[in-house]
């Protein structure tokens, strides 16, 4: 990958190109250390697929990037905010909120707001972020729903939708914030097999047509091979190996990675 060289030059010259910079990230839950020092960068338009066994820390990393979890040590830099862990003062909470306004997140369990219609779900973010132009927010929400193929479901409540449709709404809801970065935390793991395709298709279009930088935790290796610029293998809280899909699938360096890939492929 061409970005490999510039990464070595550090934060100076290439800073504008970097969307996320994670440095020395540790996360401990009680006695359990889930992340043991993660350094990672995501560049403009880059799609990174993070994979590994359950409990290897992949989801925790994603959740640390938008501070759903507080890092025990290390920093996360997104959209000009460089934040670490520690006590959440009023000022810190506001900084975290500002950071989150630039980051979209899609959850395994969709987490749509069940008491709102699909349209209200998509409008919730922008309206809460202080965009008072109801007409504009509504128009953009309709546009987004159309782009994920669910315009006709705008006035339904989420429970009337299939899992795949719900997850597509969740993607539209996150995109409504016009994020600079999208996080996908096992977006298809809760879906019936025949419904994963429609969600992955939306994600693929997001990557190829809109060049959205994405961090995707998934076991969908077909998606990784087709869409990812880079694949990152997590093992016991560290990044054991990473590289472009071709390299990861054909010339795995680590036995652990090979073993995992053989198991899921």
């Amino acid at each position, binding site marked *: 990958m061409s970005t490999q060289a510039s990464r070595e030059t550090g934060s100076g010259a290439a800073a504008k190109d970097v969307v996320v910079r994670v440095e020395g990230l540790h996360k401990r839950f009680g006695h359990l250390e889930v992340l043991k020092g993660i350094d990672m960068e995501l560049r403009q338009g880059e799609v990174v697929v993070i994979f590994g066994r359950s409990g290897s820390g992949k989801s925790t990393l994603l959740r640390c990037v*938008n501070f*759903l979890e507080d890092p025990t040590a290390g920093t996360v830099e997104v959209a000009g905010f460089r934040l670490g862990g520690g006590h959440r003062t009023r000022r810190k*909470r506001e900084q975290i*909120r*500002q950071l*989150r*306004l630039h*980051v*979209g*997140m899609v*959850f395994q*369990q969709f*987490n*749509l*707001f*069940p*008491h*709102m219609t699909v349209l209200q779900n998509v409008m*919730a*973010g922008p309206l*809460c*972020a202080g965009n008072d132009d109801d007409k504009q927010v509504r128009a953009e929400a309709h546009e987004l729903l159309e782009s994920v193929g669910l315009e006709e479901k705008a006035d339904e*409540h*989420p*429970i*009337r939708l299939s899992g795949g449709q719900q997850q597509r709404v969740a993607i539209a*809801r*996150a995109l409504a*914030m016009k994020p600079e970065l999208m996080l996908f935390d096992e977006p298809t793991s809760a879906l019936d097999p025949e419904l994963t395709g429609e969600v992955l298709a939306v994600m693929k279009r997001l990557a190829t047509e809109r060049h959205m930088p994405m961090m995707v935790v998934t076991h969908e290796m077909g998606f990784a091979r087709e869409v990812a610029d880079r694949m990152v293998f997590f093992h016991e809280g560290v990044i054991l190996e990473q590289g472009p899909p071709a390299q990861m699938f054909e010339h795995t360096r680590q036995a652990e990675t090979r073993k995992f890939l053989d198991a899921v492929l």
Partner: protein
Amino acid sequence: MTPGSSTVLGGDGSGDRRERLALASARIPFRLKVAAVWAAIFAVLAFFFWLSQFDTDWMLDNLSFIAAGLRFTIAIALGGIVLAVVLAGLGALGRLSSNSIAYGVSGFYVSFFRGTPLIVQMFLIYLALPQVASNLVDRFPTIPAEYANWFILEAAVAGTLALGLNYGAYMTEIFRAGIQAVAGGQGEAADALGMTHRQKMRKVVLPQAFRIIIPPTGNEFIAMMKDTALVSFLGVTAASAEIFRRSQLAGQADIRNLEAYVVAAGLYWALTALFTVFQARLEQRVSRGYVRLPGQSSQPKGQPHGGLP
């Protein structure tokens, strides 16, 4: 039953009859059968009342006097539930707060008011509070003496306060559980969208917690309507007495205790039954978004609870 009998089940004939009866019964709508059971219970009760020379004329004569207590019963219960809801809301936020003062105060509140009897709390507020106030005024002459009078409360007011404080403590736990039940994934989704804490609570958490909280809060309100009878022990005058006090007064005066308390029981029952209907409507209203098909309620209707295998 002989070994060579051809019928497998209940071969002795009486079993066949039971079988036929069960089949015949299965054809009658469940609700109709339940209604028949209720009618039978009322018939038996009426029979025993008639045997004990139940004085229905006295009941009719005194109904309006006892029923006049309804407005006090309802006023006390409404005042109590409003106070309880406010306290429970504050209490739940305190129990969920990371602020040590809010957490500590709400913890003390719940512990004390759940840990002592309601009737004791009523007397503390009605009788002990004025005593404390007047002693303080005696000790500190700088405090104007009339301040002490503020704490001499009407029995109904003291009762309402005690009910609100007591039920508020129980409902604090209900509200806390309701908020916690939605705060997890829904709260994270709101966080991830960059909502402020206030927006998250107002737009995402509370509207959903509301739906979880309504049924148990309705139950608390029903219980409170009945506990208003305890206010009688504070010794209210006949003019402002609620249902129970009035039935006591009327019943004892004419030695018609059975009749008087049956009237009281009937009035409480009618009140709670009426509210149960209202509550069911409210629950249906807030279940929007949790129902898959139009017109279908979140809990299947008309299905007896024991009807599932």
